[in-house]
């Protein structure tokens, strides 16, 4: 791995365990090290993890308990130490209004169901040649 590779690579924030596991698997297939993938189940705990571990990539659900994704995105972009993170909104919400708000705050918006190829592409565009080729046979599909 390149010496500049981050310790914490990505944070997945979703109240659904299944979604967290699914995005994790896609990131691992892309070549993100498993121990560099963090998770949180709500926006408030996500902010805590971001401040402590500073992953450069964040996948953020919109509808979550305690603090929703748009409020969390707003907090990220207002914080000078966090605003450099690439934020990808993963949402089933079909509202153009919320999507426009998220894009206005600098996030990429992907509407669920999201193809794993889209997650892999985000990882590749974020990490480039720092990714570690996965030995999982399923990685050959990408």
């Amino acid at each position: 791995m390149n010496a500049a590779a981050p310790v914490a690579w990505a944070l997945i924030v979703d109240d659904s365990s299944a979604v967290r596991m699914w995005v994790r698997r896609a990131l691992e297939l892309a070549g993100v090290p498993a121990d560099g993938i963090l998770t949180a189940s709500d926006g408030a705990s996500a902010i805590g993890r971001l401040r402590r571990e500073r992953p450069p990539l964040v996948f953020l659900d919109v509808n979550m308990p305690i603090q929703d994704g748009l409020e969390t995105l707003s907090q990220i972009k207002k914080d000078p130490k966090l605003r450099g993170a690439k934020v990808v909104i993963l949402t089933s919400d079909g509202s153009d209004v919320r999507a426009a708000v998220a894009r206005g705050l600098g996030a990429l918006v992907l509407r669920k169901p999201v193809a794993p190829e889209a997650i892999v592409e985000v990882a590749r565009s974020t990490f480039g040649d720092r990714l570690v080729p996965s030995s999982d046979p399923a990685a050959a599909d990408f």
Partner: protein
Amino acid sequence: MVDPTVEPPPASADRVGFAVAFSGPLAGTVYVRMPEVLTKIIAGNLLGADEPVEDWLARDTAGELANVICGHVLPTLFGSSAVFRIDAPRGIGATDSLGEEMGATALAVEGHRVEVGLCLLREQAGAA
């Protein structure tokens, strides 16, 4: 896989249900019912699991499926400029009252029957 040309089989006794409540220009619920075994098939496919998926994870996946369906149904019916609050999915029983049923359909998915429906709060159903 969904095959619209296949007649859905009859409802099985072991079916489970998940509902997602929404509020905004109108308030109601989108629900999904399916056999419990199908929740495990869907979760296994989604997660690429080699081992059988645990019950809680299969139910979480089915709840997320209900969430995704709700997120697609609302803009289709009410337009993508309408803003709704969408609650977290919850499990429902076979006889739970979800409001006035406005529409429902049944699909064959992997050979199992899946029912999807939209209910509105009773006081809003007449206005819809």
